């Protein structure tokens, strides 16, 4: 009896936690949410606008070939409130390590899961997103 009760309480707790994570919407329909890709690059443009903040950045591969990637994330009001972002959080030329859920069609586009700047600031937005 006690074990069954504990199991149900655990299920309810997990539901409560999961519901909080799913509380906000997202436009992640274009992205493969089953895997992430981590890239090192140089910021080209930091666009801190509604309805989605996005960053374009250049990634150089081992042969020296440069690909322009872009990652999008939540609106400014959410990024400011949750992670302290502002229009000055990044600037062109910043070195960044960006982890994304990549585009389902293989385009160099992704939804932001994590961002680390060269001066050690970390934005961890990697809770499993809800579409």
């Amino acid at each position: 009896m006690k074990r069954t009760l504990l199991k149900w309480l655990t299920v309810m707790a997990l539901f409560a936690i999961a519901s909080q994570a799913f509380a906000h919407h997202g436009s992640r329909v274009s992205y493969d949410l089953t895997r992430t890709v981590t890239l090192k690059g140089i910021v080209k443009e930091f666009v801190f606008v509604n309805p989605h903040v996005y960053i374009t950045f250049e990634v150089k591969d081992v042969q020296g070939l440069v690909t322009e990637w872009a990652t999008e994330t939540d609106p400014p009001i959410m990024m400011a409130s949750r992670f302290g972002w502002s229009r000055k959080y990044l600037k062109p030329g910043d070195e960044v390590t960006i982890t994304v859920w990549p585009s389902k069609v293989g385009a160099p586009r992704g939804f932001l899961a994590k961002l680390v700047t060269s001066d050690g600031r970390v934005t961890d937005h990697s809770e499993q997103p809800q579409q």
Partner: protein
Amino acid sequence: MRSRFIIAAVLLSSVAAAQPRSNEAPDSQKDQPFDRHSLSGIWWGHAARGTRNSLSATAPPMTQWAQQRHDAAKPGLGPRGQPLGNDPMMICDPMGYPRILFWNNYPYEIIPLPDRMIMFFDWFYTYRTIWTDGRQLPADPDPRWYGYSVGKWDGDVFVVQSNGFDDRTWLDADGHPHSDEMHLEERYQRADHNTIELSMTLTDPMAYTKPWVSEKFTFKLADGKTEMREDVCVPSVEAKYKETIREPAGGATVLKK
């Protein structure tokens, strides 16, 4: 020992879930005296669990007219979401009412004036007017993106009646339609110092075979630091986002290497 740990974890998570958000007035203010006939302030919306950014989890049965419109709608969010949709929000068309209410990450401000109440929405930086001067709804209203509204107090409940809705707006992110004959009743009640409760009834026989009664929405008073921002949806910015992000990510355009 293990069972005590689990019980503690459950209790902690339940308590955590019930705490106000960091930008809401603290619970300690909940029992402060308040004016039951005041809805003034900056508020954060909380939809009822499971509503999925709509009036309720499930719409009433649609008419054939509405079903065709719903089928033609291609949402960018939710269970019918697809990478390249036709949600009017994607070109920054006005959100309309009540859909503007469902964006819980943006606050809104209620401002009483002598003959009307203004509901100002941070998202889209827009407002609607609720006339409180005793006038009736117009019999033949011009279509408005946010409708034409009149309101009055019925005891401790502020009752708003609205008509004159432009039928180009979606009711929710799933693309549920409405006609220009839609009538909306809203009932607001200040539950305590920090809380307003709202329920809505949408009547639109052209679109739904019976009234759409909403779940109860809760609005929580913002903390003293919250200010209304200018979160505009800018068509040129959205067009650039579409070209740079949405279409390449969704496969509508192939980027040149």
